[in-house]
Structure formats: structure tokens, C-alpha cells
């Protein structure tokens, strides 16, 4: 075994892994010819960085060093296996960029991350496969980490990723930025994947914790990556704004014991002002496009909360108006639920409750714990504690994670007391 790298080198490699993985991998795919061998050579490059940087020092541009190393190794493998490979179906048409192009040692490589993003989030792949590939190939998470994030066994996740890669190869899903005519839809698909990564981390649908911080952080990384690659896109600005403005409240969402704290009772001094300022700036840009996209509208709602000095000062009529715009363009049951809650605070709890009761008939919300929890909350505010208890009991059965369950149990205990 090689001697362990110094802490500085280990930290530099870990940092380069977090920040440069997608760039290095994307730059290697075209030389390697397929994603699998590109991944292997990039992993080798990171491994060799540990020993080489220890001996020769950390390079000025770690990303470029890793890219050169990975591409050189890919080219090497390519030559050695040329005969065997000729018989295999090729993932990529490398005819325009033959392996071992002259730029192998150049300082600057084309930024191929967008191509890689569009391959991972291709609509011909199932959504769960798009999410898994995005975390694996763009964030560089190990299969075990991706599996843990979704509370699946490593074998299940490995099979899902392998199946997706096989489809990319067999169906010739291209490594390319889509044509202008398709770009809008395809960007929207990518944004949905990134949003799903973020929300799964932010409100864990199962497990013991309220959040899966790792996943929420990766959602932010991905949104930032997209913003850097598509700087003029209003929907991308909207998504990054939403992620920042929602994530800004993270430190206040749980108390010292890990118990859930509703926004009403959060210590607003713990909210991340830097994230809010950045998010509001992006939001302005996103709202300049007409009509505003769904992420921009959701971000605008988050911004109204973030910029309110206290719960009592919340501008509910403004929030209700934004939910109405959102519901007009994206009439999903969850948007309708949130609109009903805003209605309760803006107009009156009885009116809000009436809409919540109507939504109770929607089968798509039958297993959605937040509907029962919202009904319970409005019933308490209306002084109907018996009916509130029934609603919280229902929410408790449906609740996804332990933090939410403990919160509901506490509310039930209050009602009993």
C-alpha cells in the first residue's frame, strides 16, 4: 500500500473531487468513447493525484491536471484495447473528435459538462435513473452514497445505474447539447431532476432525519453548475434562487434536539442572509422573463417569507397572489394545497379549511401527510380540537420521517393537555 497522502494533499484531492469531477469526467468521455471507461480512468486519475501531488506538490490548476491525466490514460486504454473495442457498439460518434486529439496536453479543454448533463437527464431514461446518473456522474457520488441518499440497497442502485448506462449505449443516447428547437423542454427536464434532488434532501420523504443534508447540498451544487453553464437562462436563475431562498432557513428548521420547528416559531436571526441576498438578486432576473416560470414563482413565495421581519408581518395576500399565478400555470394538487393554506392566512382559516376539505377528495393527495397536518393546524386555530386530533392522527400515519412524526406527536400531546 502506498503511504497515506499528507492531510493537505488529501484535502486538495477531496476538494477537486467535489468541484471538478463533472468537468474532468465530461472532458474524458469524448476521448474514452463511452461513459463507463471514462469513469474508470477519471477514478484512476484521482487516485494517482494522491501520490503524485504528495511527491511533486499540488498543481496550480488541479482540474486541468486531472483532466490531462484522465485523458492520457483513456487514450492509452483505447490504443491497447483497440482490437477488442472495434467489435463493441460504440456509445459516441467520435469521428469529429478522434481519440487522442492534439489538445491532449492543452491547458484549456472544452467544457463538456452541459453535454454530460443532457445525457444524464435524457427523457428516454426513467426519472429515477436520471436522478441516479446525475448524482453518480455529475456529482461524483459513489453508488453506495447514491443508494444511501434514496434509502435503497447498494445492489438495487447499482442495477439501476447499470441499466441506465446500458440503455445509453444500446440506444445511442447522444452526448450532445440538444438543438435549439428542443432546448426549452430539455432544460426543463434537467431542472426538474435538480429540483427533485434538492427537495428529496430538504424534506426527506422517509427515514429518521428531517433533511438529508448531503442531497440538499448536491442540489445546490447542481443548480450552481447549471447557472454557470447557462448564465442567460431565466428558468435556471429561478431554480437557483428557489434553492437558495428555501435552503436559507435550514439552520432554523430544527432545534438543538433535532426537533422540527415550524416557520412560525423559527429564530429568524439564524436565517442565512447571504443566501437570501444572492437568491433575491437571481429572482429579480428570473422574474424579468414573461411569463415567469414555475421555479421563479416558487422562489418569489420563498422570498416573501425570507424578507418578512416576523411571522406576524408575513404578507399573506402577496403569497396568495403568487400561489394563484402558480396554480394557473401548474395546477398540481400540491400547489392547490399550498394555495389553500395561503388562503387561510390571507382571508380566514374557515375559508382555507373549506378548500382543504375539498382537496381531501383528490385521490392524488390521499397519502400526502401535509394535507392532514394542515387541516389539523387550521382546526386548532378555529378551536375545534376534537377534529384537529383526528387530522393529526391521520397525518401521523402518513408522515415520512421520524422528525415529522415526533412533531405531530407533540401537537397531539398539546391537544390532550
Amino acid at each position, binding site marked *: 500500500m502506498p503511504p497515506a497522502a499528507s492531510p493537505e494533499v488529501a484535502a486538495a484531492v477531496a476538494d477537486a473531487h467535489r468541484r471538478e469531477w463533472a468537468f474532468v469526467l465530461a472532458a474524458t468521455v469524448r476521448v474514452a468513447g463511452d461513459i463507463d471507461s471514462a469513469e474508470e480512468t477519471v477514478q484512476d486519475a484521482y487516485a494517482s493525484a494522491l501520490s503524485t501531488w504528495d511527491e511533486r506538490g499540488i498543481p496550480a490548476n488541479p482540474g486541468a491536471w486531472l483532466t490531462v491525466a484522465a485523458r492520457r490514460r483513456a487514450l492509452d486504454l483505447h490504443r491497447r484495447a483497440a482490437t477488442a473495442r472495434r*467489435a*463493441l*457498439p460504440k456509445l459516441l*460518434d467520435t469521428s469529429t473528435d478522434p481519440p487522442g486529439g492534439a489538445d491532449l496536453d492543452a491547458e484549456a479543454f472544452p467544457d463538456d459538462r452541459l453535454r454530460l448533463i443532457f445525457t444524464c437527464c*435524457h427523457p*428516454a431514461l426513467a426519472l429515477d435513473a436520471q436522478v441516479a446518473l446525475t448524482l453518480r456522474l455529475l456529482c461524483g457520488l459513489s453508488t453506495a452514497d447514491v443508494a444511501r441518499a434514496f434509502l435503497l440497497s447498494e445492489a438495487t442502485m447499482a442495477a439501476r445505474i447499470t441499466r441506465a448506462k446500458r440503455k445509453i449505449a*444500446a*440506444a*445511442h*443516447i*447522444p452526448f*450532445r447539447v*440538444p*438543438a435549439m428547437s*428542443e432546448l426549452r423542454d430539455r432544460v426543463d427536464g434537467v431542472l426538474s431532476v435538480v429540483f427533485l434532488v434538492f427537495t428529496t434532501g430538504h424534506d426527506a420523504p422517509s427515514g429518521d432525519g428531517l433533511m438529508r443534508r448531503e442531497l440538499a447540498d448536491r442540489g445546490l451544487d447542481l443548480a450552481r453548475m447549471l447557472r454557470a453553464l447557462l448564465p442567460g437562462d431565466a428558468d435556471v436563475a429561478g431554480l437557483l434562487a428557489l434553492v437558495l431562498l428555501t435552503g436559507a432557513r435550514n439552520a432554523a428548521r430544527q432545534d438543538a434536539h433535532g426537533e422540527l420547528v415550524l416557520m412560525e416559531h423559527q429564530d429568524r436571526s439564524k436565517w442565512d442572509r447571504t443566501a437570501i441576498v444572492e437568491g433575491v438578486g437571481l429572482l429579480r432576473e428570473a422574474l424579468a422573463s414573461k411569463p415567469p416560470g414555475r421555479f421563479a414563482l416558487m422562489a418569489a413565495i420563498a422570498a416573501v417569507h425570507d424578507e418578512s421581519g416576523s411571522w406576524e408581518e408575513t404578507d399573506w395576500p402577496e403569497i396568495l397572489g403568487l400561489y394563484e399565478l402558480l396554480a394557473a400555470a401548474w395546477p398540481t394538487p400540491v400547489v392547490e394545497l399550498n394555495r389553500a393554506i395561503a388562503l387561510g392566512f390571507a382571508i380566514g382559516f374557515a375559508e382555507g379549511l373549506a378548500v382543504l376539505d375539498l382537496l381531501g377528495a383528490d385521490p392524488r393527495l390521499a397519502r400526502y401527510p401535509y394535507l392532514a397536518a394542515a387541516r389539523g393546524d387550521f382546526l386548532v386555530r378555529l378551536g375545534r380540537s376534537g377534529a384537529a386530533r383526528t387530522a393529526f392522527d391521520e397525518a401521523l400515519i402518513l408522515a415520512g420521517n421520524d422528525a415529522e412524526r415526533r412533531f405531530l406527536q407533540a401537537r397531539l400531546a398539546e391537544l390532550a393537555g
Partner: protein
Amino acid sequence: MPKYLLMIFQEEVATREEAGETVSGDYQAFMQRRAGSLVNGAALEPPESATSVRRDGSGGFSVTDGPFAESKETLGGFYLIEAADLDEALEIAKEVPAGSGVEVRPVRVAS
């Protein structure tokens, strides 16, 4: 260049109505426009003309009347096409004037 099989699905009623007709103008226009990509293709007789031959698992066969999988939508025809990649294949598939839609399957390359 990769090859794909475009399987054209339509509601059974539509299949029956179209049976016996000559190739429609829509299909003719499609085939002219995409002549460079089409390798082969055909329309099929309606599903009630189908016969399924299944292995019975003990070396024999069972022969039954009807298509292999019962569904509202049935295979009405196919094209074998050549395309640069899946995106181009999907673009061509969208142009097929099919009743319900098209399933796009890559043709396996012998290794």
C-alpha cells in the same frame, strides 16, 4: 450508423378501418421526406389475423388465435430506420403519422 425499429401502434378500431386501404397520403409524404433514413417497412394486417406461437416449456408449442399481448393498442406496422443517434430516431418517430404512437427500439449490433 445505428438502426432502430419503429413499431407503430394504433387503436384496434383504426387498424380495422385502415385495412385494405392503400397507403395514405400522410404516410406517402412521410416516406418521401425520410427516404434517406428508411431501410424497410410495412403495414400489417389487423390483429384478428394474428396467430401466436408460444413455447409451452416442455419442448412443444401452443398455437393460439390473436396477438401475443392483448391491449387496446396494437402493432399496425413498422419501419426499420437508420439514424445518427436516439435523438434523430425520436425526431423521425414523431413524424410517423401513427394512430397512437411509436415505440423506438435500437437494433442490436452483432458483436
